[in-house]
């Protein structure tokens, strides 16, 4: 009897620990929602979501979030232009061409690339990539979207590559052998058989990569500048949603003020964007699993 009760207590305690993760999600949503609600009582939703000026720290504050969203999307788009083709090509090479020995060496090195702290990438973007790019584009400012975008792409590349490779390696061998038997080359097999068969897994990897780029903070906080600007020009300083949160956190804006609440409102928007992307990615991967299991 005594043992049985103890067993029951232990099981309950373990359950509480597991449920802590649900509490974390609830906590995130609650904290963001409460402060965003307070913020939206003073700033109309329409002004927040469609305004084209973001100057919350000025004497006449304007709370249009679009410049921050545009900055985030521009840097993320540049990162994707680097990470998607390079990640996919690396994955094709590793999955379809590379001998085992090469794969055993290259994969851990790519993991190192994924494990480098983001503040280090920020330093790399500001001190190495920007000066290099300025030689090619002399009109480029010291802070810009291009350099952090490229570096972010390099940072995300291992994620795209390893998830895409997993998806491609899950494609049954028989499909490849069928293609070879019909006289297809490795390239034809890779591009016309393996990639289409692994398409939903690869798409899931791409979407997860976009989500990672949107939420990435330190690279842009260091190398993109702190000027909210509605622009598609990759050579001028701008500010992303994440960099704005960092900027306010570093300053001495008093807690409880409207300016202070902006970081939670921006955070809420960021959370909803990444959460939506993650859900789509998970859904795609689940669907993908059904096909070959």
């Amino acid at each position, binding site marked *: 009897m005594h043992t049985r009760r103890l067993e029951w207590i232990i099981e309950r305690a373990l*359950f509480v620990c597991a449920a802590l993760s649900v509490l974390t999600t609830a906590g*995130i949503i609650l904290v963001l929602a*409460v402060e965003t609600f307070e913020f939206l009582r003073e700033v109309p939703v329409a002004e927040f979501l469609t305004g084209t000026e973001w100057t919350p720290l000025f004497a006449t504050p304007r709370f249009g979030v679009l410049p921050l969203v545009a900055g985030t999307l521009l840097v993320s788009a540049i990162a994707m232009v680097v990470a998607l083709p390079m990640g996919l090509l690396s994955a094709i090479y590793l999955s379809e061409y590379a001998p085992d020995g090469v794969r055993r060496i290259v994969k851990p090195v790519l993991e190192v690339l994924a494990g480098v702290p*983001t503040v280090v990438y920020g*330093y790399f973007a500001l*001190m190495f990539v920007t000066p290099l790019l300025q030689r090619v584009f002399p009109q480029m400012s010291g802070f810009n979207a291009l350099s952090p975008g490229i570096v972010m792409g*390099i940072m995300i590349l291992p994620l795209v590559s390893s998830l895409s490779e997993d998806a491609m390696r899950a494609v049954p061998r028989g499909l490849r052998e069928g293609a070879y038997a019909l006289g297809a080359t490795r390239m034809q097999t890779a591009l016309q058989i393996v990639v289409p068969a692994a398409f939903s897994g690869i798409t899931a990897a791409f979407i997860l990569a976009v989500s990672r780029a949107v939420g990435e903070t330190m690279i842009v906080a260091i190398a993109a500048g702190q000027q909210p600007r509605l622009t598609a020009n990759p050579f001028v300083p701008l500010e992303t949603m994440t960099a704005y949160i960092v900027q306010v956190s570093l300053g001495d804006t008093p807690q409880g003020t409207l300016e202070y609440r902006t970081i939670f409102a921006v955070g809420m928007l960021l959370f909803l964007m*990444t959460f939506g992307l*993650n859900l789509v990615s998970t859904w795609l991967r689940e669907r993908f699993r059904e096909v070959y299991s």
Partner: protein
Amino acid sequence: MKHRADALFRTVALGTLLLALAALGALVYDIVSGGIGRLNWQFLTSMASRRPEDAGIYHALAGSIWVIVLTGALALPLGVAAAVYLEEYGGRSRVARLIEINIANLAAVPSIIYGLLGLGVFVRVMGMGRSVLAGACTLALLALPVVILSTREALRTVPGSIREGSYALGATKWQTIWYQVLPMALPGILTGLILSLSRAIGETAPLITIGALTYIPFAPDGPWSPFTVLPIQIFNWVSRPQAAFKENAAAGILVLMALLLLMNLIAVFLRDRFQRQGRT
């Protein structure tokens, strides 16, 4: 013709891969050449200073170690307990499935959002202030999904026959887990923990968001002390216009990378050692 296309494609694919590796090489070269000249005993043992040549990394290194040890102390029991529940008890129940989906989603939430959570809950509601403890709690929540996932993997490697043997000898479920399953899974669990901590130690954004200070000329002396960490100190130095501070930043990065390397070596060593014990 089509074989030439194939050869060309292969070269392009290999070229992209090499380009990615070259980027890593450039990164390492840039940091080593930028910081190695600044790395000396004075740099390791000095505190923050307004003069770049007097500034050091000691306070930030101490802060990072304080935060990461506390983070591990919080994340290990919570993560292992959650993983044991999901793997050994939860089964296929609806609630367990819900928790699983939730953990997978949490793993993909941007780290800066965890910073806002920590600011709202630990710093303000729970009144921890901008302390080492608040930072560790925030990073522990951030590390938990990875600790849980790697612990579950480790638990899954323990063969079912071990559990059945234990039950046959009259052990209860918890006795089986505590005396048989967990010791066998320990190397995997510890490796996963250290790897997740090595990610947490490089985190900057969530700690800036909870209000860890960027300028602090002393090392923390307890869980309630204000603090800074290596990545925040590096960020602070990078953000200053003077070249001398940039050099400090590169040297700081070298210290951070050395710490990361050390943690990874410990993980490899632990796995190796426990595996050998398990065999004898």
